[in-house]
């Protein structure tokens, strides 16, 4: 074990590996709770969609599928960036890792900006329940419910992206300053796990929000 790992060893652990395993296990447990956090929203979505299948299809057709697809690609690429940064640190790299992490944070920001644009256009189209909603027709209620869930799910996800961008920026700075090395990168590993999780959530959000009812228009 390197000195870097020894220096970070807390007194309740005997070995750096033991500490690292504990951190990884804890992080995965946290992610399991996050799965259930988002799971409630997904379950609510499923129950509502089961009850108002046509309304949800109609509502989903008003979402911006091009934006959604680009956002998905952006997140997938950023996830790969985080994974590569970790790999680079483990191989002893510093500058490349910092650059990759900064790039990851930048892609996260791009995602947020795109989403902001999307929200703005939904406001213009009158699809924001509570603020400005003037969709009419037999499915008006179901459409409103869909957009409630849409803003909840994407809003809650964006909150996670914001946290992730901050985390990635901090990690980029730390990596740049050489705080991580082949023997010790636990904070970076956990931050990367978090970022991948945010990516996974979006992988499910994308078809649920943007792709419903496209074939039957």
């Amino acid at each position, binding site marked *: 074990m390197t000195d870097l790992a020894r220096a970070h060893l807390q007194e*309740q652990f005997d070995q750096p590996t033991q500490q690292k395993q*504990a951190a990884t296990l804890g992080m995965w447990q946290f992610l399991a*709770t996050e799965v*259930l*956090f988002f799971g409630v929203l997904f379950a609510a979505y499923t129950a509502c969609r089961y*009850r108002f299948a046509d309304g949800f299809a109609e509502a989903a057709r008003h979402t911006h599928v091009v934006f959604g697809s680009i956002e998905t690609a952006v997140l997938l690429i950023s996830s790969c960036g985080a994974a590569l940064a970790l790999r680079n640190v483990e191989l002893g790299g510093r500058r490349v890792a910092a650059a990759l992490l900064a790039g990851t944070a930048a892609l996260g920001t791009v995602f947020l900006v795109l989403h902001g644009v999307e929200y703005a256009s939904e406001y213009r189209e009158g699809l924001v329940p509570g603020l400005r909603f003037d969709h009419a027709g037999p499915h008006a*209620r179901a459409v409103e*419910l869909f957009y409630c869930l849409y803003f909840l799910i994407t809003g809650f996800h964006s909150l996670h992206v914001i946290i992730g961008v901050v985390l990635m920026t901090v990690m980029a700075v730390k990596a740049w300053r050489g705080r991580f090395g082949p023997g010790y990168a636990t904070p970076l590993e956990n931050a990367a796990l978090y970022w991948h999780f945010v990516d996974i959530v979006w992988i499910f959000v994308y078809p649920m929000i943007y792709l419903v009812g496209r074939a039957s228009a």
Partner: protein
Amino acid sequence: MSGTDINLSMEPSYLVSGGNTLWSWLTTHDHKRIAILYALGITFFFFLGGAAAVLVRLELATPAGDLLTAETYNKTFTFHGIVMVWFFLVPSIPTTLGNFLVPMMIGARDMAFPRLNLFSWYLYMAAGLFTIAMLLLGGVDTGWTFYTPFSTMFSNTHVILAAVGVFVVGFSSILTGINILVTVHSLRAKGMLWFRLPLFVWAMYATSIVMVLATPVLAMTLALIALERLAGIGIFDPALGGDPLLFQHFFWFYSHPAVYIMVLPAMGVASELITMGARQKIFGYRFMTWSMLAIAVIGFLVWGHHMFVAGQSMYASMVFSILSFVIAVPSAIKVFNWVGTLYKGHLDFHAPMLYGLGFVGLFMLGGLTGLFLAATALDVNLTDTYFVVSHFHYIMVGGSVMAYLGGIHYWWPKITGRLYSERLAKFAALLMFLGFNLTFFPQYLLGYEGMPRRYHEYLPKYQMLNVLSSAGASILAVSYLLPLAYLGWSLFRGARAGPNPFRATGLEWTTPSPPPAHNFTVPPVVTEGPYEYRP
């Protein structure tokens, strides 16, 4: 049980080392000090919630709604529920005894994440502040269950504040759960195999699984309630196309397993108390561990038995009914094994043992009445009556509180290094058992007679039993205040306890009382299973 002999050393105890300033306590990373911080908060909330219960029982002594207005009464029982469930029962054993003992029982120096441990205490206190603020601003009147659309569209009270309080305390609970799980996984001493863990550790492990996987659902659901009030989203609101039953599903997905968060730790404590009292191995150790894990998992599949008359599908009700019967099996196994542990023992009736035996009896009565509620046809009549109220108080107050106090008595010498008056403690335990039964047994009869719960005034025909119940509650209140007095006294005047006053097994008894900051001077090595008592 440990290969090393008693770790008597000259190291200063955790109460002294690191200084004794307020600051040293508020910034401590020592799991034992954090346990004490938690104990202070939990005791405060227990008596706060207890005061609300006293008001409820006083009001119900007469049929007319004369002491409190209907609105105040509703706020009082809601406050009682919220405080007792989330600020006392859920954190009680895991954060105090669990925090103190899990690292010691597995032979570790501290929890895996000490800073996270302290942080979760701060979260708990912050949530407590929200709840106190909610009370001071006028309270909330939805019942602890927050049923929609009443809580979202009709109540004019501080639902959002209450929801935020519970949301935050939920995070505290999740973090405690993660901490315990990781600690048990990664910090066991040399030779501490999984099936050498004391049952208390297994209980904390099973509880933590439930905490980690159920609490997020509650947190998100309450966030949705708050958003529904704030922003008018309509997921649970029928007027906007939502479904109030969806709320009930989500709520009980947490809140039924939460019952097991409350009672599993109590089962763990009871196993320790009874083996110590019987001075022999637990009967059926593996069945005890597997039944706890089974309860933790099956506990997630029975939530719909709260909704038999709520309008859920009758087929879903059938599934929930049979699963609710099934989960009674592991509970039954545990009761029989505790009784089996007494067989051929050398029974010592210390105060902790009396609490342990009381727990078994009351838990069994609560569990058996649960069968009535699992049977759909009977539940139709009994649900939302005092039968239910009595049933869950038998489990939570008769079961969990009894075990919590038993545990406090058992490990008090270890935690404080002092002995309390054994005679007073035994008297309190007996008084509690009697007072409890007098309070809650009449409520079974009331429920069977058809008195609905959450009634501020009631028909005169129910008065006799209500008076009995209120009388029992006053005895119960005394029996809860007694330990506060004699344990408090022992802190200053109690005789010094040796490292192992109960001559019990377990790593926690191999270090001095109170233990040094890092628990063990020599890292312990474990060579045998728990409860190797030798007569």
